[in-house]
């Protein structure tokens, strides 16, 4: 066992240990719990940073041991893993800070933060999983650890949402398991490998491989909220804001998308998948999801619900990017993994701030909120423009890269999808911004809380400001080597190798 083998394990253990400690802490030990949370989050960020540096230098970290006969438990830190791990580690820190502020004085915090840490541990596991089986292990662990977070409020609405969530995700998990088992049945244990395993398959494998692909995508598509498997996502928006941030930006939805990335890249291989004609179908579904999600978002009057439908739409960008099957398009899709995360987490933080500080849930209550909460509103505005794809923000980089990739792949219709989606995004975000900044406050805020001279608690204000800053920088400095785009290009160079 070298340090190389242990780094991923440590990264996984930080949040697991935190979860165990937090579960055993009494409810009233607020400060101790916060300290444990933050220390674990910072530690994890450092470990992930260390691994990113190592991977950048060309090192690989990993560990594996047999688990069930014929199946290995594999943790491996490659460039793709680090993209997701880096994303989740950094946003975990911020979400933790935010959650500490958000849940101040609310009951059951021990339970909340315990599962919260478990959830992040699962995400880290999903990132570092070195084969489909290990991936599935953490994927299901994620399902279970998010359920208590979704139903955290314990209201009837929350419980219903939790039920919908669990029905969707567990069924998706079962389908995924079925697919994995089938794949395992005819080709044994498949580690994730750049280029995939089926580069030169025999022709009689084509039909079963196609079938398995469909099954795998159907299983993963539930978490990735591909239409028509997206039903749980808008319902789950009743969860507390930090949970929504986690669901939409860091963990759950991303896990699905990341799984699809792994399957397409490293199980099937981009070329094989393309040769089997699978990417066309996937692209069509993704395109439909993009448009459908945006169109549904238009008619939502609840802020978080609108954001949720926006997620449905945005996550499929990642998938659509993969389907472009060229280095540029793939880079566009992958970089959106980070970009969508940072934009959506900002939006949900802000929505949470409005709800927590002013009691605002519906969009028509937002009139004049910009004057009352300028910091939050600036962050919200930046993220919304990012979603629309306005330069120089992160969303633009995605759209531009994907657009170029689409042209390179000769899939011009993707441009039309991008444009229609951007128009719809503008149509549902700009009116919100208009209300925030350009309308006068009409009625008293539904439930206002005063926080002294600041617009809201510092715990709540800083996380969205930081993420908003990041989304500006991710766009502005996109060509720098340390930017998400730079890292994604490194991945594409290493992994796809087209």
């Amino acid at each position: 066992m070298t340090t190389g083998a242990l780094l991923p394990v440590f990264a996984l253990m930080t949040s697991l240990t935190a979860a165990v400690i937090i579960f055993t802490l009494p409810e009233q030990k607020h400060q101790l719990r916060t300290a444990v949370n933050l220390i674990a989050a910072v530690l994890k960020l450092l470990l992930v940073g260390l691994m990113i540096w190592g991977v950048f230098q060309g090192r690989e970290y990993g560990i594996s041991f047999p688990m069930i006969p014929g199946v290995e438990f594999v943790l491996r830190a490659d460039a793709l893993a680090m993209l997701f791990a880096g994303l989740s580690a950094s946003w975990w820190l911020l979400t933790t800070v935010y959650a500490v502020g958000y849940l101040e004085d609310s009951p059951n915090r021990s339970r909340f933060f315990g599962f919260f840490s478990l959830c992040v541990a699962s995400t880290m596991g999903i990132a570092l999983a070195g084969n489909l089986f290990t991936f599935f292990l953490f994927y299901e662990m994620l399902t279970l650890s998010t359920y208590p977070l979704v139903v955290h409020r314990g209201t009837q609405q929350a419980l219903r949402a939790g039920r919908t969530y669990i029905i969707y995700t567990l069924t998706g998990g079962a389908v995924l398991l079925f697919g994995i088992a089938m794949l395992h049945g005819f080709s044994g244990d498949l580690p994730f490998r750049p280029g995939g395993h089926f580069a030169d398959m025999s022709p009689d494998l084509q039909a079963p491989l196609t079938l398995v692909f469909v099954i795998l995508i159907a299983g993963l598509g539930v978490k990735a909220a591909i239409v028509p498997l997206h039903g749980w996502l808008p319902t789950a928006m009743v969860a507390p804001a930090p949970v929504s941030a986690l669901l939409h930006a860091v963990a759950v939805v991303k896990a699905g998308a990341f799984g699809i990335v792994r399957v397409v890249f490293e199980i099937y291989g981009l070329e094989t998948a393309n040769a089997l004609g699978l990417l066309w179908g996937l692209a069509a579904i993704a395109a439909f999801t993009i448009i459908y999600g945006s169109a549904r978002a238009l008619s939502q009057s609840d802020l978080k619900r609108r954001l949720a439908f926006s997620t449905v739409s945005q996550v499929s960008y990642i998938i659509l990017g993969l389907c472009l099957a060229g280095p540029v398009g793939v880079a566009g899709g992958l970089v959106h993994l980070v970009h969508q995360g940072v934009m959506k987490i900002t939006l949900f933080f802000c929505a949470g701030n409005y709800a927590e500080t002013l009691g605002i849930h519906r969009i028509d209550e937002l009139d004049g909120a910009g004057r009352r909460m300028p910091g939050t509103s600036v962050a919200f505005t930046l993220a919304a423009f990012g979603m629309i794809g306005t330069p120089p923000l992160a969303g633009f980089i995605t759209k531009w890269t994907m657009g170029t990739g689409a042209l390179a792949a000769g899939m011009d219709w993707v441009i039309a999808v991008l444009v229609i989606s951007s128009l719809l995004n503008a149509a549902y975000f700009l009116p919100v911004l208009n209300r925030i900044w350009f309308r006068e406050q009409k009625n008293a805020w539904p439930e206002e809380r005063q926080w002294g001279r600041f617009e809201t608690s510092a715990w709540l204000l800083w996380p969205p400001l930081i993420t908003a800053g990041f989304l500006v920088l991710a766009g502005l400095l996109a060509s720098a080597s340390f930017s998400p785009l730079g890292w994604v290009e490194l991945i594409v160079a290493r992994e796809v190798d087209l």
Partner: protein
Amino acid sequence: MTLWLMAGLLFTPLAWAVLTLLAGFRRGRVVTWLGIAIQVLVSLALWAVVVRDGGFQYPLGGWQAPLGIELRVDGLAVTFVLLTALVAAASGLHAGFYLDPDKQWHRYFWPLFWFLWAGLNVVWLGNDLFNLYVGLELISLSAVGLVALGGQSEALRAALRYLMAALLGSLAYLLGVALFYGEFGSLSLSGIASALGQDSSGDGTGFALVLMLFGLALKTALFPMHRWLPPAHGIARSPVSALLSALVVKGSFYIAARLWLELGAPLGSLALAQLLGLLGGMAVFWGGWQALRQRKLKQVVAYSSVAQIGYLFLLFPLTWNTTEAAALQAQQAMTLQVISHALAKAAMFLSAGNLIMSVGSNRVNALAGVSHFLPFSLFSFGLAGVSLMGLPPTGGFAAKWLFLQASLATGQWWWLVVLLGGGLLSAAYVFRVYRASFVEDSNIDHFFHPARRLEIIPMILALLSLGLGLMAEPVLSVMALTFANGEGT
């Protein structure tokens, strides 16, 4: 060394049963602690011996096979011995604090507990049909007694019903044994197997096998012969339920599985194998569906046992006339399912007992707001539930995975429906309990905190069942010794 171990394993429980019969509940408890310590150590030692040297046949008292009692000590048997030691110890320790010492009839818990343990060890290690029968009877009778400890008239009714089923099962089994003896003049399982291998006659013995399997299935509560189980397991005190669900039903199943693996190839048929599998599959769905509909917490758990037992019966179709690799996978799956279900179900019943104790009601809906007060027990319950759902990384998942692989390898894809659908159904009833506990709008203020030690025991069991999936490979490697040896002899 081995002599002492075997003696310890078989006679300590009997001796302790007598000892505790003489003592009251409180003194019996102290005595039992000592006994548990001895049993656990002995089991561990035996396990270590087998891991080091491999399995062996042990003639009890030095007499060889046809005359004396021969014990089969192989990897599988010691694993189950160890499992029994673990679960029984946990249940015993839990019961010591859980049961009310002031109720007169609770003093009989200890002797019954020890008889049960003795019977279980006999079953795991026995290698001849009659010994197995004795062990089986010992188990059944003490189990009936334990159910009756519940005290109310309802408990007595359930116990009586259980007794009838158990007796009928025993009878059928005994009849089968008699037929075998008449045909081969031997009661040794390996003797019969080798006799069958030599001449392919023995036409009547196919019926004998069916009879025995019927009796054992009745005792294992295979659908549709499961009706006795939920009342009995539901009404018994929680540590008792844990013992019954985790170990007792596994005893009869273990015999059935051994019979099948050794005699199934010559005597069984495709129809029989598929029928047993089908009944198992129906048990999975019916048990799950019923569990979903129960109002009482322990009934949910009890019906869940019916469903979980159903999985075990997939062993029969998956090992009959299939490739060696697939059969091996099915056997591994079965053993993992036995272990993980034993651990998880014991954890579940024990934590359910804690939950019921704290809210003072056994209704599922009474759990509203419990997550606020009792996250620890609820967490154990939840972890055990994860294993029942068959989600990774639990032992339940490992078992399910191997069953899936075996089904795919043998082309019997229809079992996938059972495996995946059953998992979802179990998720549904487990989450129903979670959901109830997360309800916030209750205003219970009367709430009893059980002692920490009561909460820790199920947690350990649940964690073990969780970790089993990660450790499946090493655990199975010990058991692999079985099949090499077992089939060879």
